């Protein structure tokens, strides 16, 4: 069940160099470079319109790049998309592909597209869909549909799997069971590239992440690397005080940057005691107090917020 690649250097599953794609006036992908190693779970994070989807579509052989190069499993995505499609698995957010076909029928159908395929019965068992094998896909629960969607992505036993926001819209229990499936893929030696809106998901699943915005990769590395590289600071969070503007807060002692987060304000501080004293004083000067005050270490969410200027879920 493990990948056949033994020895030291695992060959790259994806190699991207100087990749560009423009739609009219919008430079969707603006010269990006990255590499996904074989057997790795790699997360691509970014707000909507950051260029994640376009990047993934080029890698899946669905779009032609304007410039640069993308090698997927050693094949050029622009020239050999058919060769790539045979060896990758793709899961999109939409699950109800053929609402009136049964689970078995849909898996059989997708299997028929490939030269090499796994047995339908095996997939049904692996994804715990046995009781629903004869149910029409429209009758499945959200979690079951998502499992089917991932099962379809694996029908050709791919070396590389693309997961597009695999847990969006799932309840916490279904989300955790899907995470377990993704870990299982990694144990089987498959490479996974996933896009997600959930920081917790990226922190739990991804060996490495890249943060994209405006068609560029802003930061790349393991979650720990990213957080520690960007943030020696801690986050001081409180209910936004209307009479204190962002500039005043950013000038408080120890504060490196300030950012709004819904109805809260977050100050990234290298000297928490000094920042707290300054904040309480500033609040008192306008006759207010800092409510719901909390202090915590910086997370990937904070990295994202600081880099892109908005929260990931926007």
């Amino acid at each position, binding site marked *: 069940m493990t990948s056949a690649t033994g020895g030291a250097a695992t060959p790259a599953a994806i190699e991207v160099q100087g990749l560009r794609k423009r739609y009219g006036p919008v430079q969707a992908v603006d010269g990006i470079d990255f590499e996904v190693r074989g057997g790795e779970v790699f997360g691509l994070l970014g707000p909507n319109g950051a260029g994640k989807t376009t990047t993934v579509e080029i890698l899946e052989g*669905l779009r032609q790049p304007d410039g640069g190069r993308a090698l997927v499993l050693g094949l050029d995505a622009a020239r050999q998309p058919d060769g790539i499609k045979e060896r990758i698995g*793709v899961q*999109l957010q*939409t699950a109800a592909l053929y609402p*009136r076909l049964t689970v078995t*029928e849909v898996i059989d159908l997708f299997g*028929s*597209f490939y030269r090499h395929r796994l047995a339908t019965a095996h997939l049904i068992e692996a994804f715990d869909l046995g009781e629903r094998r004869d149910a029409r896909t429209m009758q499945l629960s959200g979690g079951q549909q998502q499992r089917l969607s991932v099962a379809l992505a694996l029908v050709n036993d791919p070396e590389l799997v693309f997961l597009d926001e695999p847990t969006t819209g799932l309840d916490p229990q279904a989300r955790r069971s899907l995470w377990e499936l993704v870990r299982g893929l990694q144990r089987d030696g498959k490479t996974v590239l996933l896009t997600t809106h959930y920081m917790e998901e990226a922190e739990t699943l991804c060996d490495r992440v890249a943060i994209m915005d405006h068609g560029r990769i802003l930061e790349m590395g393991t979650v720990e690397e990213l957080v520690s590289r960007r943030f020696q600071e801690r986050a001081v969070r409180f209910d936004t005080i209307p009479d204190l503007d962002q500039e005043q807060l950013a000038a408080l002692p120890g504060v490196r940057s300030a950012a709004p987060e819904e109805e809260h304000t977050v100050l990234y501080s290298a000297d928490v005691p000094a920042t707290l004293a300054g904040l309480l004083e500033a609040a008192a000067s306008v006759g207010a107090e800092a409510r719901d005050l909390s202090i915590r270490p910086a997370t990937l969410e904070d990295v994202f917020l600081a880099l892109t200027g908005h929260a990931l879920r926007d």
Partner: protein
Amino acid sequence: MRTLVILTAANLKSFVRDRAGMFWTLLFPVVFVLLFGMIFSGTQNPKYSVGWVDQDGTQASARLASAFGAVPILELKPGDEPTSLDAMRKGNVSAVIVVPKGYGAALAAAQRPSASPLGGLPGLPGQAAVKLVLYTDPSHQTTAQTIQQIVGQVAGVINQQLTRAPDLLGVEPRPLQTENISNVAYIVPSILAMALMQLGLFGAIPLVEQREKLILKRLGATPLKRWTLVGSNVLVRLLVGVVQAILILGIGATVFHVTILGSLALVAGLVLLGAATFIALGYVVASFARTEEAASQTTSILQFPLMFLSGIFFPFEIMPDFMRAVGAAMPLTYLGDAMRQVMVNGAAFAPLSVDVAILAVWLVVCLGISARFFRWQ
């Protein structure tokens, strides 16, 4: 090729399991044919109820009754004179025939061989010996005339038998379809053309839906070839079109006796060409409609002028000039025209070859536009 078959089977399964879709594509045209057929055939084969008053009561008058009863469009209602006339006043019968007393006796007298040529024959030339009384309502002109003619013919046959005069002048009936074809014969090929139009045009809606829900994108990420995907969609639509055609023509033939006069192969060819043209038009709509809602609105907006200005329900002759001009540009005009020409010898709007050529041009143009503008995601 194997993938095409599997995908087509999957699409057919999806189609058959969609009850609402089945209703609209298969049952709706059938209901349409039945409804329109019944409306338009109401005056085609009338049956007249006729009051029958037998005052003679002999064997001869009974034979006369069975002679009238054998006329297919007459239905005799026996009764006495006052009741029958009352029934006619109330509109329950269209006419009343009275056989006077002495009818049998008069007939027997006429048949007596010894009767002398002059004195014996009760009747004189130009003047009948016995007169059947026929009540009709002159304000219902057609009915009155028809019944008078029938009664006159029956009387004529009886006169001839009695006098044993040899047949001098006979009539040999020969069928000839007039240009002024019956309403039902007009409506059946028209509804077939309309059903094919809807089949193709409405195909735009699931296509846009599949694009919106990223199904086309998901399929695009498999090794499945695009031509296989398109081929399968077209194949399913064509199959449904053929089933629709069989249903509509079957009902036309069995219920309304509209039989195909022309070549069946030609009809089949037209069904395929028409379906293909409108499927291509559906792809054009899907090329420009971004949402499923936009697609369904566009198809509804398109189908009404197509239906009403293309001579499908209203013949061209009754339309004002500008409407005719619009109709003359539309593909459904030529599909309907071709269908009527081939199926029921309908009056030609354009020669058949022109119909086919114009449909082919529409097909090619729509294919070109779709190939250029259709988006997969």
